[in-house]
């Protein structure tokens, strides 16, 4: 007998085909809208057509009178139950249904619950709301202008539209660094508003059973346990009587982390009607009211020495939060982890000043495929780096290399105070440059320029913090950011694993089993993985910010090790030797002096129920709560080449090379899938995804005809490469990966276009880098801002 072959049993490193696919390819996924409960009613939301207006009156009498209408909820109904406002995940409040004012276009004003969704929609149209329009604010300068209308007049001690002022870093040290600089490179950037837009919109089915007092909610949520806590606090229901079930989710990308008014309204409706109430958001509702992302303005400065070294960083960021500060982010940090910027560069001093403002736009600030503003941080970083290299007249790859943290410099304290622990930054850059044929491309570019063709190459290199906590620093609403796994080994050696995470396409049912296979030698196919039901899963903080593998995945390894420790005692009993003489190889324990004498893990499982040692607690089950000692720090190098058509401003991607170092890869196939998905969203943000507002606060980009997502036709092909630097503190050496490409990617595209325009005097074009913006830049030699308001109609 020998150890089992890890790849054969679908362990770590196997590109195991996904278990969950078996139902998805048959059309048998179980998404919220697929669930039908007996007696279920349907809810529809009436939204505000205006961005800022006082509500003078609401007349719902015609809606009430329509056949099939069971209930109409307005702000007044909610207020009578103290539910007109709810707390956000960032210690602000958000209107569930508007009472006094509407503060953004699309805000929830009333809900109709009816026999079917068509009737509910008809009845919404029959509700008459009398609005007194107020001036709308759509950007921070309007918001901060003297005499600007006060958006949050509902709050005490809120004299203006400022949400917060926050700073981090060493102001004085940074000032000194700038005083010593040979050159200061400055750039102003805007990371525009974007929307995650998973293909499945948000939705809920609330099912309150009066006879048992139990409330069951089927919900499109990436974090069911946080929602359970929130419902307990908002609705003042006992937590054991709340069951949140997150079934299959049709993509999340951060959109499905917050608590939305529709969820709360459907819960109240079910409690009042004592029937299940389903709410399925339509796409316009999704785009205009739920978790937007980004919308941050930056003034960035780098203090440079003539030899290329960066001496200091200054960042001044202004975040447009919309009408309510509802970012889902660790409570300690007001502008997320913006200060993770420049973590891969060896820079002594940095200072970040951040201000958040209210505007008449949808709330959100969700981490769209992102760890809390890391996407903005890395975009700003890499745009600043390219501008600085250009200002110095230095090669952009060489400039990065000169400033990289070196392989032997870990652990390394970043300029803003994070601790990075591992990486081979120079190697990743080399692999990328080699793959793209850097020197050859530079020659090709020069030749092409002689014939009037504009070629460009853009590089983006970054390390980002994935996998919050540790719990010392990371919490949401005070709840520490750890995660969990529970493993039950049945007597036949088959197993059930549950975690506090929640897959939305990441393939947890496949990869978690691979970790157990790696730790215990059980075939992955013998392990059933379940997530998303708060009545059965151990408490965890859910899946977002690339934290599943770093935290819940680590918990899976740790619970497996607890099981193995107990199995070892059982093995000693079965082999009739002392525990010290027991050795482990994958799938079996054996006698150190007689390797052929051993017992399999399956035999130990059977013995745990049928032949345990005297005094041992029966069974083979355990649970692990994992609080990571640090974040994980994957590194990535993305290189894009483009050709810009000077006649039209259209730019085409020629090649896209991605080098990712996410440590040990559990399932390479799934990792590559995550990278390609992220690259596509990076391309989308750089190229086409655009939500903006006109002067009245009308949302432009309220459906997929206006808010463009890339199709198979536009999306470029990807060339993927890997470097592996194991995470030193993660039990299996893995780092987060889901968001890396979406975080680091956008700057590579923009840098490529800006490189093609080098020499024209244009320093920046805001995303999306639309052809008309490139054309305008080429015509004027001026930067192009994309900040709202946009002019529409005949304005």
């Amino acid at each position, binding site marked *: 007998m020998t150890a089992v072959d890890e790849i054969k049993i679908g362990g770590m490193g196997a590109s195991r*085909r*996904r278990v*969950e*696919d*078996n*139902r*998805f*390819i*048959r*059309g*048998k*996924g179980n*998404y919220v*809208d*697929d669930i*039908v409960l007996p007696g279920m009613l349907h809810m529809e939301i009436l939204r505000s057509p205006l961005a800022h207006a006082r509500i003078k009156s609401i007349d719902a009498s015609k809606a009430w009178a329509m*056949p*099939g209408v069971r209930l109409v909820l307005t702000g007044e109904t909610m207020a009578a139950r103290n539910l007109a406002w709810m707390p956000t995940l960032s210690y602000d409040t958000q209107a569930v249904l508007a009472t006094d004012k509407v503060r953004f276009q699309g805000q929830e004003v009333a809900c109709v619950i009816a*026999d*079917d969704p*068509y*009737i509910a929609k008809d009845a919404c149209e029959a509700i008459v709301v009398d609005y007194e329009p107020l001036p709308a604010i759509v950007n921070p300068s309007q918001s901060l202008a003297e005499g600007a209308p006060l958006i949050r007049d509902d709050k005490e001690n809120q004299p203006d539209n400022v949400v917060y002022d926050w700073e981090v870093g060493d102001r004085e040290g940074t000032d000194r660094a700038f005083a010593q600089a040979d050159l200061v490179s400055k750039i102003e950037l805007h990371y525009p508003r974007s929307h*995650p*837009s*998973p*293909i*499945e919109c948000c939705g809920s089915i609330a099912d309150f059973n009066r006879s048992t007092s139990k409330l069951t909610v089927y919900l499109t949520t990436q974090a069911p346990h946080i929602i359970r806590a929130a419902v307990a606090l908002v609705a003042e229901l006992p937590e054991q009587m709340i069951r949140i079930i997150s079934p*299959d*989710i*049709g*993509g*999340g*990308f951060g959109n499905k982390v917050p608590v939305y008014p529709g969820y709360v309204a459907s819960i109240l409706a079910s409690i009042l009607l004592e029937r299940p109430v389903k709410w399925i958001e*339509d*796409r*316009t509702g999704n785009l205009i009211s739920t978790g937007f992302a980004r919308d941050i303005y930056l003034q960035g400065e780098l203090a440079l020495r003539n030899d290329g070294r960066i001496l200091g960083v200054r960042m001044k960021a202004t975040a447009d939060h919309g009408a309510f500060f509802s970012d889902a982010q660790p409570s300690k940090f007001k502008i997320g982890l913006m200060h993770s910027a420049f973590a891969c560069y060896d820079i002594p001093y940095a200072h970040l000043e951040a201000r958040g403002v209210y505007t008449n736009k949808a709330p959100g600030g969700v981490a769209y495929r992102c760890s809390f503003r890391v996407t903005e941080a890395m975009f700003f970083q890499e745009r600043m780096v390219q501008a600085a290299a250009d200002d110095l007249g230095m090669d952009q790859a060489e400039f990065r290399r000169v400033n990289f943290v070196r392989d032997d410099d870990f652990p390394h304290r970043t300029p803003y105070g994070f601790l990075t622990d591992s990486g081979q930054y120079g190697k990743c850059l080399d692999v990328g440059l080699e793959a793209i044929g850097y020197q050859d491309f530079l020659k090709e570019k020069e030749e092409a320029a002689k014939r009037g063709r504009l070629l460009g190459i853009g590089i983006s290199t970054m390390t980002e913090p994935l996998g919050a906590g540790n719990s010392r620093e990371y919490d949401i609403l005070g709840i520490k950011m750890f995660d969990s796994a529970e493993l039950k080994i049945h007597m036949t050696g088959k197993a059930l694993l549950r975690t506090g995470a929640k897959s*939305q*396409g*990441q*393939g947890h049912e496949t990869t978690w089993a691979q970790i157990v296979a790696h730790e215990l030698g059980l075939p992955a196919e013998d392990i059933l993985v379940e997530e998303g039901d708060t009545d059965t899963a151990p408490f965890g903080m859910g899946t977002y910010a690339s934290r599943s593998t770093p935290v819940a995945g680590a918990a899976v390894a740790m619970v497996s090790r607890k099981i193995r420790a107990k199995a070892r005692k059982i093995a000693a009993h079965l082999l009739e030797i002392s525990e010290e003489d027991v050795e482990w190889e994958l799938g079996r324990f054996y006698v150190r002096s007689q390797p052929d004498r051993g017992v399999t893990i399956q035999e130990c499982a059977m013995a745990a129920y049928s032949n345990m040692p005297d005094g041992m607690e029966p069974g083979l089950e355990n649970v692990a709560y994992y609080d990571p000692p640090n974040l994980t720090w994957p590194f990535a190098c993305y290189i894009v080449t483009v050709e810009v058509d000077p006649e039209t401003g259209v730019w085409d991607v020629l090649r896209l090379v991605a080098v990712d170092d996410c440590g040990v890869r559990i399932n390479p*196939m*799934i990792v*590559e*899938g995550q990278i*390609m*998905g*992220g*690259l*596509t*969203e990076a391309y989308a943000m750089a190229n086409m995804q655009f939500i903006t507002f006109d002067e009245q606060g009308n949302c432009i980009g309220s*459906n*997929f*005809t206006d808010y463009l*997502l890339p*199709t*198979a*036709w536009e*999306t470029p*092909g*990807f060339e993927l490469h890997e470097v592996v630097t194991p995470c030193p503190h993660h039990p299996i050496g893995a780092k987060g990966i889901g968001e890396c490409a979406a975080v680091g990617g956008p700057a590579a595209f923009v840098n490529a276009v800006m490189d093609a325009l080098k020499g024209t005097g244009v320093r920046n074009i805001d995303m999306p880098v639309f052809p008309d913006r490139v054309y305008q830049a080429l015509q004027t030699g001026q930067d192009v801002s994309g900040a709202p308001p946009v002019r529409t109609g005949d304005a």
Partner: protein
Amino acid sequence: MTSLFQEVSPGAAAETPTRQITVTINGERRSAVVEPRLLLAHLLRQGFHLTGTHTGCDTSNCGACTVLLDGTPVKSCTLFAVQADGHDVMTVEGLAGPSELHAIQEGFKEEHGLQCGFCTPGMMMASKALLDENPNPTEDEIRWALSGNLCRCTGYQNIVKAVMWAAKKLEDQ
């Protein structure tokens, strides 16, 4: 009639016009009494409980609701159920045979052509329409044929590979 549309509130019944339709769905003739404004996607999902057909955008952009109408891919959220009266509709539930998966389904799994699975049924139906017409498509032909279907997870590269995998398998059969 289906459970969703069976219970009609007093008063609503008299006011609501209805029409009886018969549609062949995945080879089976099925009848229903529907409001003329009922969308085909909703008839399939709520009416016949064929929930593999998804709706994702309401504006015919995302293609998650793609089904085959007499063999042609259509977006079932943009057709009224009455427009399918007398026609043949194939949904994702009709792809697999009684004992084995369709090559397209196998291809999507083998090449990791799906992640969250929400766009997958529409994507596979559009792929079927392509392969029925063009059994040996190029990468560009696949990308063009699927350009009416949005996927947020995969970046499409593996979807292209999945369709090529299926084309090869169908050719070998």
